[in-house]
């Protein structure tokens, strides 16, 4: 897939490699780089996924990085119905309808 100048894209770069990172990090963090992903408009005339490109971010900065997505879409969603939660509504409504203290007082 190829991106053209002006298209909305996402780039990736490593900010700190493992040996450049701060001290006193947990083991799982220490061994991986500090990575960055930023979106912006492609400055290069053409580029394909994996190319090092330059983008202009919405704040007007020009930064470079590896092209990892073209017109990236948001992938978060509503998830699935959660069986452990889906009956909470009926349950609490039922408790509220049970004859109880507050009616008596």
């Amino acid at each position, binding site marked *: 897939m190829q991106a053209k100048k002006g298209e909305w894209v996402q780039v990736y770069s490593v900010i700190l490699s493992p040996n450049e990172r701060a001290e006193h990090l947990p083991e799982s963090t220490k061994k*991986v780089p500090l990575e960055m992903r930023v979106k912006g408009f492609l400055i290069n005339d053409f580029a394909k996924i994996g190319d090092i490109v330059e983008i202009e971010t919405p*704040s007007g900065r020009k930064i470079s990085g590896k092209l990892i997505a073209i017109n990236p879409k948001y992938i*978060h969603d509503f998830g699935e119905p959660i069986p*452990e939660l889906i009956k909470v509504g009926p349950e609490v409504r039922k408790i*509220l309808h049970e004859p109880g203290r507050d009616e008596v007082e």
Partner: protein
Amino acid sequence: MNRYSYQAVMKRKNEIMKKSVGIDYEKFRVEGIAFDYERMMKEVGYSIEEVRKIQDEVSVGRTPLVELKNITKLVRKISKPGKGARIFIKDEACNPSGSFKDRRASLSVYHAKKKGYKGVIAATSGNYGAAVASQAAKRFLKCIIIQETYDSRGIGQPEILEKGRACEAYGAEVVQLSVGPELFYYSLLLLEQTGYFNASLYTPFAIAGIETLGYEIVEQLWERERRFPDVVVVTHAGGGNLTGTVRGLLKAGAKDTEIIAASVNLKGLHMASDEDFNRKSFTTGHTGFGIPFAVFPDRSDVPINAARPLRYMDRYVLVTQGEVFYVTEMLAQLEGMQRGPAGNTSLAAAIAIARELDKDKIVVVQETEYTGAGKLPSAQLTFAKKMGIEIKRGDPIKEDKPGERIVIPEHPSQLGVIEVNLLDLKRSYIKETMKRNNKHNFSEKELEFISEDLRLPIEAVTQFIDEEKEGKSNAKGR
């Protein structure tokens, strides 16, 4: 050494921070670790009248105070006779970007504009990002939000992704980083490179912006009930929410209101761990911020943190992730309000607290937040399952295991709180202060400062210091 290396930038920390917030913090220092907190808040912040005016300009604040009549009724169904306080909630989701964070952002961005900064930068994975982006849009400032978003596999928690999306919708640039405390380093670097304003959550502006929240609670409750709230429950993370709200409550005269801080219990999860990062459902309002920022506020991104939670907290309780999801569902199904979940941390605590209080008491939950794809319990719990977290019904406190198991209550009577010993926190504060400043002896003014910062008699402060010294020498002796 490379000018942009971690070490080089961290060395320029104070210089960058000073330029990017435009505050000469030094002039408030009294002696050693002591500084004049109230003078700083007065001279640097804004009066509540000014804050109101600024917020009215951008339609921030003046949100509804909603009585949760059905939840109150439910609480009474499961309480001892005569118990079950009335619960009100401040519907902060009605702010322009959907959370109380608009109050903080409105002040920071106003100040940045006034001081001639061309843009603002905020380091946050929370709703504050959307708030700063929204306010920056209103005031024509450039905006960069720096988020801790992904683990090393490139997986992002849906709630954080949603917050990033919201920022982008307002035209902000979102810098998504992987896990690690070096987010601070990168923020400094960007502040230096852009010359933008540091819209920190911990400046006097960001705190003053919240004071209206506490003030409005008192005003609104007074208008309706002719009384002050008996209890206000505040979700506690970095301390700003608590500090600002209580300052507002006090300014409105609510001097006898009990202030209860509430955080989600994430005990056992390491906040800087790439592995643990996606094993939590809550990105803020949890113990990973709440405890460290209480015991050492000045770990923040400004030299002096204006958020001083131990000055304002009467009680600190923890709830579990499962409880928060449960009450989020309750709020939708019983009160017709889809909100949170993160904003419902204090609601979960409030329900447990209301059960213990007399019926004629009033508990105010201090915030809600907007919700939707990514934020809803269904999104969060689907993600948690994918991360290998067990989801089950059961006792939400006894069976809870952060990072391994989320337990949804089977009955509202299982909603409870875990008490945090405030004295232990205050002792930790003293320990941290001694350790981080490498200091064993304190001047009278320093002791007075600590005493104020902890709301603890000077005698107790000195006793804790002595015990800490002994402990240290004991430890050394061993």
